[in-house]
């Protein structure tokens, strides 16, 4: 069974996303909405990781080296300035999308396994990941015209 691989992948994704939200929060502290929301969302990702832990304990940890290409590197070093902010938000969007689709894959497995506990975890967490994506999109849609046309 490969579910443990995906559970580990998901846990790692949430961790990477949490770290990346914090990096962006720090780098763009002059944008208070980005700063405070990214901090809150980082906490949210860590809560997701904690909620996943009992499931991982039940199924066991999966080998972390397959499939290698699905691991995403976090936002290592944030950029600066208005354009840098837009591109950092875009990085977060990609990371959150990876997390979102991994939740969906795990949810499918949970359905097939009739694992009610797992499905409850998915339903609580993935709903929040979807909001994270929507917020990133809302914020980027707002910033993009100014960044791409008027900012120096």
């Amino acid at each position, binding site marked *: 069974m490969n579910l443990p691989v995906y559970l580990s992948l998901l846990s790692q994704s949430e961790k990477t996303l949490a770290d990346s939200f914090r990096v962006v929060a720090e780098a763009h502290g002059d944008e208070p909405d980005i700063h405070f*929301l990214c901090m*809150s969302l980082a906490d949210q990702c860590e809560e997701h990781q904690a909620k996943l832990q009992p499931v991982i304990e039940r199924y066991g940890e999966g080998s972390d080296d397959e499939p290698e290409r699905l691991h995403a590197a976090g936002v290592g070093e944030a950029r600066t300035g208005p354009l840098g902010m837009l591109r950092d938000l875009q990085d977060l969007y990609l990371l959150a999308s990876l997390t979102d689709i991994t939740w969906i894959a795990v949810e499918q497995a949970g359905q097939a396994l009739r694992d009610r506990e797992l499905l409850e975890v998915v339903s609580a967490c993935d709903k929040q990941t979807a909001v994270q994506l929507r*917020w990133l999109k809302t914020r980027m849609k707002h910033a993009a015209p100014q960044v791409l046309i*008027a*900012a120096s």
Partner: protein
Amino acid sequence: MIQQDSSTGEAGTDRVRDVWGGRTPHARGEAWPDRLDLALAEGLAESDVDTWVKSACVLCSNGCGCDIAVKDGRMVGIRGRTDDPINRGRLGPKGLFASWQGMDAKDRLTTPLIRRGAELVPATWDEAMQAIVERSRALLDEVGPLSHGFYTSGQLFLEEYYALAVIGKAGIGTPHMDGNTRLCTATAAAALKETFGADGQPACYEDVEECDALFLYGHNVAATQTVLWARILDRLEGPEPPLLVVVDPRRTPVAERATVHLPVRPGTNLALMYALIREVLLQGWADEDFIAQHTMGLDELPEHIAEWTPERAAEECGVEASDIREAARIFGTSERVLSTVLQGFYQSAQATASSCQVNNLHLLRGMIGRPGCGILQMNGQPTAQNNRECGADGDLPGFRNWDNPEHVEQLAELWGVDPLVIPHWAEPTHAMQLFRYVEQGSIRFLWISATNPAVSLPQLPRIRELLGTTDAFIVVQDLYLTETAALADVVLPAAGWGEKTGTFTNTTRTVHLSEKAVEPPGEARADLDIFLDYARRMDFRRLDGSPLIQWQDPEDVYRAWQECSRGRPCDYTGISYDDLRRESGIRWPRREGQTESIDRLYADAEFSTRADYCETFGHDLLTGAGVEVEPYKAARPDGRAFLKSAKYVGPHEPPDDEYPLGFTTGRSVYHFHTRTKTGRTRQLRDAAPSVWVELSQTDAEAHGIADGDVVEVSSRRGRLVAPARVTAIRPGAVFAPFHYGYWDAPPGAEKRRPTAANELTITEWDPVSKQPVFKAAAVRVKRLGGAE
């Protein structure tokens, strides 16, 4: 009728010492009796007045009906209109004294000023407008519309907002328009939109006469809307008084009268609201049929409210669990509850989420649209409602939805422009973001009308720096050389209340016409005339080649606005200038051909949430993430209201070891805004001449501070120096009024002895309403010396 002489003489009752005036107690269901308040310049009697000109007061969101006294071409006094539904003849201290005297100070701006180096020097109108138009045109050619920003007020008239909205959206095409309303009513609008699908106050002031319980959430009505408090006092002192529940960290005059006072720790409103909701549901006080038929979202409440037992909320908020239970019982078992909300919620952590819970409580009990059962998400400013309706705050006029292509098409047709010109790719730019773009240099033309951001925005050291050193071209249009005007490139002298004609709409949807009573001083011009002049000089055109703006006077603009509002929730088509001259105050909506207004919205529980009608598809209350059109339609709200909620996260800058106290700001009963008018009125200046800081006995003792000692309050951003008042404020909280800037202080005062509360406040805003969080910053206090 009870006559009350409120003249400026020392004898008799005056509204400075007796702020709310004499009582006219009455029982539930009886109409509020009238009481005529009057103030005239010293030595004048009513018989000396040449003419009385019909108007309404612009010094709070009540908009009390009044007549302006004119003698020899000057405003010399004011009296309330006893036939007006808002005030029945009463006026408060600001209305009685500052409304007309505040226009008459010697330092009024009388000529345009242009910056030459460090100096602002007098110029002609032609020179000033030419300078504005040259810069505006050059930036539009070089960068485009995104280089332009407009920051307005809650002080202009409807006609001025609508003209500016058309100029900004159809002429220039910029999304960067917002108002000082973002500091006062943005959360009111957001909470109404999120719950009911569109802005617009559900209740009316007559509900004060009808209710049997009254809940005031972060609303110090005794100071902010004195005439409304007089109205409430008349119920409290009559037979069968309503039970009164007050949420406020301070022991305000309102809290003094409360059945239950919940002095919550600043920033914790949402936890309290969840405890109230949880209790109402748990005790079976909810109206299940109403919830099933008229709401959606009940299933989302449990995850957010579950943990908020009265005990848990009591611990978080610093109040008694038994008081929370009692407040919930009053809400759950009263027949008719009226709730009002203001800045204590709007300017604190999780503002929109907290305010929506007030709506939720009413929906859960089916208490809306009936006499005495109402919600007033209050406004702070007299004409903020117009700013929101007309679109000068960035929203689309007529409560249209920027995310609905048909709504944008309607405006394009009305204005004769390509829909692509009207910015609607995202929500409008909010005030704080607008100033950030100025700071970053991407907005390079900023036009500020009738507002004073150099005192009213958070974190003033940053705002001063930003306005003082920016490359942006700053135009300021106001009555006086405010702290902001002093930093401008061009200053335009504006005519104000009593010197121009226009309409405005109060917090209960009541429209008044304010007529020109006197000529403005010097060369000052009405804001409308200034905007129309700019539009003509910029030569904005419709698609057919004719001028975009063809209006000559306020009534032309008003008629165009009536057309724009047709069919929308705020329909003005049945309210003409003639109607307004005949009736003292008319509520919208009143559609063409109708002669009666609707007193209470949603009497039929049909809410404005249909996808083709709603003003917004809504937001996630924690993050502000927009809801997209497809999921919105798929959820089929179809006229049902939304029970929205979000996880409680608390304030972002809670007190800590370094800054152990929670700072909150508020109003003095004697001042409005940054004292532009009230500070120039002898009676009000004498009553509250300078800033003070309130702290509790416990905190005062811990810091060795006695009442009257001079203290320094500091936050991570700045400091404030003021005498201390030891009061019944909750321990751990520090309060200062926000009115006191520097226009009347010696040069350099902002460094030596800062007096503006916003030196301390944090640059942060609510994720949905984008209203700054003025009421939750961490501070420390230090005694500087004894009483002066």
